[in-house]
């Protein structure tokens, strides 16, 4: 009885038979006898996520979350400080992501497969799953082309056991949006969904794509079953052969075959399969696919040199026909190789096949290759050096007692950031170590309230949470690093150890921070040399 209980608790997909688990390679446990494999996978699963081994196991249903514990009154009896802290923590949770510069697939070919079966008429998402999905699909198309201007997209629908082609592989967002409007919005969800047909059609779309780009499929699966004409495992194998990576967003519950599909095409990593919790989470999961995927191994995509044209825009005195739609237009872009006129970029020249882009399109993808480092939360010991956010001039709380004196008990984001940055770069700044101490002290003392200041590790400027989010999501440059010369950064660094800074630029403090500075310099060097970092030669003088 105990054995089966444990099985029930620990395995997420309860139907999995040990063989399947072994084959899927879930946590590193190999094949072997059923019993021992079960035990080994169990152990590995425990090591993955559960608390300290040896502690009394808690059943999942016993592990309740008391949300009212999070709301505690501050010293002055109001919960305003706690509310601010909670809000900031939610905002920050979204931000923290891996920011090592690593190789990503920039030229992407993605097939978006939408579920148009009768399961989408459920009203658990407002107004219906179907309408919400289409709305998000529209946003997805816009966002995808904004983030990846030189990539291509194709849309397929699963309707009534068949696969419906909504739009072909193309690089113009307007085409996809009109196709969605005409074909997807007008169709009534009906029948069952067929994974195999859709995947085969997706495979066909991706067949002709060149090897230097990525091949991806994003599948939105709302049903709980699939009615296929043949063996889905054959399709899965052919997908693996064609090096196509599949991501799935499940709307209802986790389905075993989806999990297998994702794990097999992503080399055993099932993080690409997400099941939604609510509408916000759904949108997050979908938009996560707009970020270029990390290139896993060398063989996945062959880096090659592509020939591209950079046309200029011309305005003509008289109208002439364009080569792409045969419309009469007065201006457009002239292909440098064959002088054909095209209306929109990026596109392939219809006459000679040369890819035509603007340099701005390439520039849009640079921020994926050089991501902005995360900022760390500033502890109260250094909080006095700034009274306002540098870039937007919004005031910070100056007094510790103004904010709530009890910290929130959710996973402290700053410590994860701190540990992450500390492990990656010698995060030498004291800001990264101080929160870690705080966290350890949390068990003994009352924890620190949020200072609402976030500092860039390079230039030590303090920013507010809104600037943090804005910079990391839209702007991708640190305003401090861009706006302050070396002397000013030094002067700022010279303000530590804490002294009453009067803020003028010529405050001559002792250079006690020289060791810090050298450490920061080392850290930056290490970052630049880290794994396939297309580094500083992009920027001539750094």
């Amino acid at each position, binding site marked *: 009885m105990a054995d089966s209980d444990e099985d029930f608790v620990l395995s997420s997909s309860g139907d999995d038979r040990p063989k399947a688990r072994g084959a899927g390679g879930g946590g590193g446990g190999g094949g072997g006898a059923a019993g021992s494999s079960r035990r080994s996978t169990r152990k590995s699963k425990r090591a993955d996520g559960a608390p300290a081994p040896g502690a009394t196991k808690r059943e999942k249903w016993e592990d309740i979350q008391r949300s009212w514990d999070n709301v505690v009154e501050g010293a002055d009896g109001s919960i305003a400080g706690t509310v601010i802290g909670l809000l900031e923590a939610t905002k920050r949770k979204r931000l923290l992501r891996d920011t090592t510069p690593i190789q990503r697939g920039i030229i992407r070919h993605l097939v978006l497969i939408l579920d148009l079966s009768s399961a989408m008429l459920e009203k658990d998402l407002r107004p219906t799953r179907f309408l919400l999905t289409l709305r998000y699909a529209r946003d997805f198309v816009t966002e995808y082309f904004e983030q990846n201007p030189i990539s291509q997209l194709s849309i397929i629908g699963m309707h009534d056991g068949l696969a419906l082609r909504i739009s072909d592989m193309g690089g113009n967002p307007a085409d996809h949006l009109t196709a969605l409007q005409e074909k997807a919005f007008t169709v009534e969800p009906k029948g069952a969904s067929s994974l195999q047909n859709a995947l085969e059609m997706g495979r066909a779309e991706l067949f002709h794509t060149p090897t230097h780009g990525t091949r991806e499929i994003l599948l939105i699966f709302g049903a709980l079953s699939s009615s296929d004409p043949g063996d889905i495992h054959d399709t899965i194998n052919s997908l693996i052969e064609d090096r196509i990576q599949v991501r799935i967003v499940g709307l209802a519950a986790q389905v075993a075959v989806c999990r297998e599909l994702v794990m097999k095409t992503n080399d055993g990593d099932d993080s690409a399969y997400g099941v939604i919790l609510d509408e916000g989470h759904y949108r997050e999961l979908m938009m996560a696919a707009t970020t270029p995927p990390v290139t896993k191994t060398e063989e996945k995509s062959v880096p090659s040199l592509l020939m591209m044209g950079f046309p200029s825009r011309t305005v003509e005195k008289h109208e002439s026909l364009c080569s792409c739609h045969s419309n009469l237009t007065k201006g457009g872009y002239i292909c440098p190789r064959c002088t054909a006129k095209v209306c929109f970029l990026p596109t392939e020249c219809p006459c000679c096949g040369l890819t035509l882009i603007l340099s701005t399109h390439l520039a849009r993808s640079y921020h994926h290759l050089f991501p902005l480092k995360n900022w760390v939360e500033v502890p109260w010991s250094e909080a006095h050096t700034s009274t306002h956010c540098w870039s937007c001039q919004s005031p910070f709380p100056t007094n510790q007692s103004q904010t709530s004196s009890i910290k929130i008990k959710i996973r402290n984001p700053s410590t994860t950031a701190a540990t992450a940055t500390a492990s990656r770069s010698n995060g030498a700044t004291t800001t990264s170590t101080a929160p870690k101490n705080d966290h350890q002290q949390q068990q003994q003392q009352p924890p620190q309230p949020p200072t609402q200041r976030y500092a860039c590790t390079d230039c030590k400027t303090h920013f507010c949470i809104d600037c943090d989010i804005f910079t990391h999501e839209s702007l991708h440059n640190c305003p401090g690093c861009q706006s302050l010369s070396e002397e000013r950064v030094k002067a700022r660094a010279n303000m530590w150890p804490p002294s009453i800074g009067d803020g*003028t630029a*010529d405050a001559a403090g002792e250079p006690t921070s020289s060791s810090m500075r050298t450490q920061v310099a080392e850290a930056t060097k290490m970052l630049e040399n880290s794994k396939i970092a297309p580094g500083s030669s*992009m920027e001539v003088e750094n």
Partner: protein
Amino acid sequence: MDKVDGTEHYNFKAPADLATLQVIILDTNPLAWATFEKSSSLSFPAALSQLLIFANAHLAFSQSNRCAVIANHIDGVHFLSPADPGTDHRDPGEADLTPEDLKEIANQNASKYRVFRLLEDEVRASYRRLIKNTTPEAVMACPNSSYLAGALSAALTYINRICFGGTGGRSSGVPGDEKSKVNSAGGKVDETGRTMHAKILVVSVTPDPANQYIPVMNSIFAAQRLKVPIDVCKLRDSTVFLQQAADATGGVYMEPEHPQGLIQYLMMGFLPDHLARQSLILPTKVDVDFRAACFCHKKVLDIGFVCSVCLSIFCEPPQGAVCSTCQVKLDVTSLENIGKPVVLPPKKKKKKKAIDSLPESGVASAAESPVPTE
């Protein structure tokens, strides 16, 4: 029946009703201005006065309009107005004034509209502070330094706070959120959380900072997302970055030919706000050069080769087929045939046999094109 028609309830206040925040980014590199003055006889104080009149004109449009000024100085970016709160607020120019001077100033102040006066005083005081802390050696050390990317980033974060309440123009995307689109102050808000329009004016006398290409492009895309036009008044040294900035964000790019008349250029070309721009045709540069420069020789290219990993651009396939920035071996097999004409290999002569096997040359002649008989 029209009287009972309640549909007007459901209309939003048009976004055109919102006020505008004007952010001015001003180059304050003393050496660049001195060089400019020699060629055009427009000195920096005169230009500053004209800019302040422009700012006053912007504020005159409406009581809710606002203005911010950012200085792009040799050692980085400084906020001139609203002044950086962390710094010392004493105006260095006031230290050595006599009481009569103060009275005179007070009298002068009486003839200025208070709102205009506050802005002017703050800008001038901040600028005086800035110059006081600048040494000639520092200026000579970096004659053409320009922190354009930093200024744009600071401007955009400020706009994000003032005009969008920090939301960055994102709609949350969750349906049902659109209903509560009134901010806490009861002010008007449209569907992206915007409470004010914004525009940026860049007045520049320094050339493009080549090493800031990526941050400048990032700022341009962020401005595009927030729908903030970037207007450019380039007094000297034509640039490519700022042309692209103006073009991509829908702003106005002008290189005034007669800088002494700067005020007229400002009033006519850069002052109209979002609503007016929908009705006006403003002078701007149309033929923007979007071509890229190669990374190896900095030549401007029409056709280039792009590494698929790091997107660096080359004018010809690099030596040894290794990308110089990311050190990745590149597959150039598909490019080997470039420049060579496509020629089919000659076919073996099997045709003669086939023809010989045919009977009579009559048929052969029938296979040829018919010849018209007389």
